[in-house]
């Protein structure tokens, strides 16, 4: 059963060096606060899993948390490249970064298989592309009824999944809405799961299109106001597009990045240790 704990406590309890960690949130509700807490706690040798490793993983990679990245699209949306990720791949700075690369459809189905307790998923994909030659979690299966050959991808079962949501109730049931991405699948596929939330409320009144993560599939819930910024939380705050653009200059330069990193390491935001 999840407890509502502080974010530092939750990360300390759930994320260990060497873990496979998935921070999910597709363009929306990206768990930045949790990523920064992982940076502050100096976790190392993580395998970072995420469909769209954007700024949050660029930051964690630059901070030296990751030894491997499992992903399907790595960029700063609408701005350009992830320079810390590029630097780690090209020069091994600060540590070398291994890649395991899929398509969106492949990653989504890997989470579905993981959430479903299956070792693999079947999809129409990858045929004719160069990815299978470089990614050993892509294979094929033959349909036992039609003889057709289809792509197979290995299930993803992270050690820890972390998502951000709008709110939780006091029992630790979590509710999120808007673009809901693969958060449910990531949580259900993982061995341990943490949800950060904007707020805790007495009752989760139903919201159209909402996904509910029941308390018994979460190990911890932590309050992290604005915990998805600079991405957005539908109904709470908008995306900070300027911050995404500003990241380009910060991340291009190791020294500017180091300065940014010091501010993150030295200044935990107020909200994350209360309640």
């Amino acid at each position, binding site marked *: 059963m999840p407890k509502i704990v502080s974010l530092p406590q939750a990360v300390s309890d759930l994320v260990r060096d060497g873990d496979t960690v998935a921070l999910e949130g597709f363009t929306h509700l990206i768990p930045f606060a949790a990523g920064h807490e992982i940076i502050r706690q100096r976790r190392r040798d993580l395998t970072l899993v995420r469909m769209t490793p954007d700024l949050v993983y660029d930051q964690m990679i630059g901070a030296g948390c990751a030894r491997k990245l499992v992903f399907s699209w790595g960029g700063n949306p609408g701005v350009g490249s992830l320079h810390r990720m590029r630097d780690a791949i090209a020069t091994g700075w600060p540590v070398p970064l291994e890649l395991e690369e899929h398509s969106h459809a492949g990653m*989504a189905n890997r989470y579905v298989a993981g959430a479903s307790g299956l070792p693999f998923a079947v999809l129409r994909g*990858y045929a*004719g592309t*160069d990815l299978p030659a470089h990614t050993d979690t892509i294979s094929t299966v033959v349909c036992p009824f039609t003889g057709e050959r289809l792509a197979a991808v290995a299930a993803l079962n992270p050690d820890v999944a972390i998502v951000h949501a709008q709110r939780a109730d006091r029992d630790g049931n979590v509710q999120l809405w808007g673009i*809901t*991405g693969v958060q449910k699948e990531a949580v259900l596929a993982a061995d341990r799961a943490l949800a950060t939330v904007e707020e805790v409320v007495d009752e989760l009144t139903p919201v159209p*299109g909402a996904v509910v993560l029941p308390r018994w599939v979460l190990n911890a819930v932590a309050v992290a106001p604005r915990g998805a910024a600079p991405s957005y939380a539908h109904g709470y705050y908008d995306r900070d597009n300027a911050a995404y653009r500003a990241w380009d200059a910060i991340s291009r330069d190791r020294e500017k990045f180091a300065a940014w990193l010091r501010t993150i390491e030295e200044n935990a935001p107020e909200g994350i240790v209360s309640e």
Partner: protein
Amino acid sequence: MTETQPLVADSSGATWTADEMMSIAAARELRDGQACFVGIGLPSTAANLARRLHAPGLVLIYESGTLDTRPAELPLSIGDGVLAETALSVVGVPEVFNYWLQPGRIDVGFLSGAQLDRLGNINTTVIGEYDEPDVRLPGSGGAPEIAASCRQVIVVMRHRARAFVDQVDFVTSVGQGTGPGDRERLGLRGAGPVRVITDLGVLEPDPETAELVLTALHPGVTVEQARAETGWDLEIVEELLVRPRRPRVSWRRCARCGRWARERPGRAPPRRRGPAGRARARALRLARLHAGDVAPAGRAADRAVPGDPRGPPRARRLAGAARAVPDGRPRR
């Protein structure tokens, strides 16, 4: 995409950028009632422009899971909150790929890339070797399955020699693969890229060889320019189209959608601060271009060079494409 150099000027002195030319050309490919899988940037501009003008029933589907979304303003990302707010339905990412894209329910998908080769294969992964890349690119995203499963793919990219290559360094998304018949062998059920819209003109696969050939040029662009920016020996179709320079109009009815577009001579685009104001100004510019660009008889007004009694080849090819009636049902 921040390149905005003027490419075309009309009689009022207003200019159109390369990206705007491409957006307009891409918008024209979309027909009312189609379902379109939209990526951010030019495709989103094009799709929203088409929906607001000649194709009000166009169904926009974003990979973030928003189905039939009707944003009042251009979204800034594929996961913009406005997409969820104005969608008929929001579904999870696994569902959008498995239930909506994969079965072939989508009529048109837009793609772009860092490299495109003569067979329409697209690279968004690496320039150079995979393990020691010269340039590491973002990777696959939704592109491989868009390329595989949409009934038609339209590629929109700047026409530059470094991008239009003989063979891509990495096949992220399959065009015609290794040549005619390869898509069928691979089990890819969509037609693949049927049109490549660039800032110089339009390329389409040759029905025999599957190689991309030049079928149209934007006004003011020469065959030599297109050849110079293409990394293979670019063939030119016999009936090469040149898009007409567009006349100036005050009021003009769109021949496709029947709507009237207003254009006041000499009126400057509204100037407002902030991205919303800029987006509005841009939308108006594009609407003017769209309206002014459409001649009364639609595509038939495209000027064939030299003339062909059967009518423009693009019209003929589109007639073939139109046989695949879009109805949202999966193909088997």
